[in-house]
């Protein structure tokens, strides 16, 4: 069947990459148009937001704040990956499963109430933020990853056994390598989750700065163009990170793409 532009408005059709790109452009244009024409007086215009972004970047050291935030996120993410993966892989041992289940349930706690105990444990400051963020992300990461490990079909283990592999080799091949693509996917989601926690965490002690602290300060002074400028920056950086993660996962695990059903 010939592909036409009409396919874009019919369900379950495959469309050309060119048309897909056009669709994205059209939606972006629509979004900007809505923004321009918005009847809400409190919404700063794109021009105001652009000017505020330029001003913050050039005169208020926004680049430095961005760096602070990125460093915090990546540092926490590194801890999250190590702790959450170890816990998830450890679920192959039945003895560990209740512990991992408990860690996963802790995501219902939220972070705010944990500030004081974590301050007492870490002494506050940068370490406190890393600990809070890592804790928050770990609970989500473990939830998703332990499920991935639990979902590995039993056949996969038996198959390796018939090849003569020992249990450690099976752990490496089936549990660790075999789920690497899913681990990367979860990491990608977790980065986004961590990114949404950043304002709260950086607000705890604003002295060290970071995008979260800046946005809270500007909020307090009701500087809406500045607030929106930072939100735009957070969104853009988030998109870049997300794109980078996608690229990484396609490079490291090219097979994952093959399994996805293309409609």
């Amino acid at each position: 069947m010939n592909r036409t532009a009409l396919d874009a408005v019919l369900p379950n059709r495959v469309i050309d990459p060119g048309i897909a790109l056009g669709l994205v452009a059209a939606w972006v244009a629509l979004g900007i148009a809505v923004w321009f024409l918005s009847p809400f007086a409190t919404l700063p215009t794109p021009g105001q937001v652009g000017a505020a972004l330029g001003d913050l970047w050039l005169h208020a050291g926004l680049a430095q704040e961005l760096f602070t935030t990125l460093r915090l996120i990546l540092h926490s993410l590194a801890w999250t990956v190590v702790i959450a993966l170890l816990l998830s892989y450890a679920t192959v041992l039945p003895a560990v499963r209740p512990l991992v289940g408990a860690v996963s349930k802790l995501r219902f706690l939220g972070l705010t109430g944990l500030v004081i105990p974590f301050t007492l444990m870490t002494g506050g400051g940068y370490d406190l933020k890393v600990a809070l963020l890592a804790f928050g992300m770990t609970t989500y990461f473990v939830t998703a990853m332990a499920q991935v490990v639990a979902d590995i079909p039993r056949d996969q283990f038996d198959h390796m056994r018939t090849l003569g592999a020992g249990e450690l080799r099976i752990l490496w091949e089936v549990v660790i390598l075999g789920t690497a693509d899913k681990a990367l996917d979860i990491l990608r989601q977790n980065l986004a989750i961590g990114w949404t926690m950043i304002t709260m965490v950086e607000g705890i002690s604003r002295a060290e700065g970071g995008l979260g602290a800046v946005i809270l300060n500007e909020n307090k002074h009701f500087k809406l163009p500045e607030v929106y400028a930072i939100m735009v920056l957070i969104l853009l950086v988030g998109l870049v990170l997300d794109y980078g993660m996608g690229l990484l996962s396609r490079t490291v695990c090219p097979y994952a793409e093959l399994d996805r059903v293309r409609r």
Partner: protein
Amino acid sequence: MAPDSVVLDVKDVRQKLGGKQILDGVTFQVHDRVRPGTTTGQVTGLLGPSGVGKTRLLRLIAGLDAPDQGEILGPEGTPMPVGSVGVVFQNYILLRHRTVLGNLLAAGTANGMPRREAEEQARALLSRFGLADRADYYPAQLSGGQRQRAAIAQQLVKQKLFLVLDEPFSGLDSAALENVIELFSRIAHNHEDQTLIIITHDIRAAMMVSDTLLLLGRDHDTSGKIASGARIQEQIDLVAEGLAWREHVELDPKFVALERSVKARFARL
């Protein structure tokens, strides 16, 4: 090995699953086949209706599960440990995160084979199985037939005297079927002590490749109701019938007649 020695001895094997007696005293032996002047392995075709317990029996032979009762002894007269019996599963399992070559290499190194030796062996198998140009493909990029050959090749990287195949004929067109039968014959008669157990409900294909047929089925009472779990209902020696190791044996009227009678028997299992 002495002529007519037993290479597989399945003794009164029973297994209950979900409160149901699935295997109910399965007993049979596979004997070493000898032909003067020709290397001859053993090929046993295990036939049985769907859901009767063929895959469960395979898992017991492979050492993946233990029977509730009875024992399964290999050529040495001892149980065969898991890993010593090659298994090609019903759905041709491969490691999806490794290429075809990577899958074969993993099979070698999992056994403690040096990587170089594994690679040599893997490449040789890939050419032999017509997969040399697919070495760098991932399993998701293979056709059904290629996937099947890759799964079989993977089990052959480390030579194992026992190979059990679960429904290896399903989904093949007649030309591919001939090729696979030919491939199994070559594998089986490559080594005097090689034994293949082919699980299938394709009676004709099983008869073409096997030297022995086993019919796994349940007893029925006079009103036709199932009266037991599965056991071997019949063992047919195709060598004694003069129907083994022959080219175009399927054209022999005797073959056709036996096929018809097995089919009739099968329908009542």
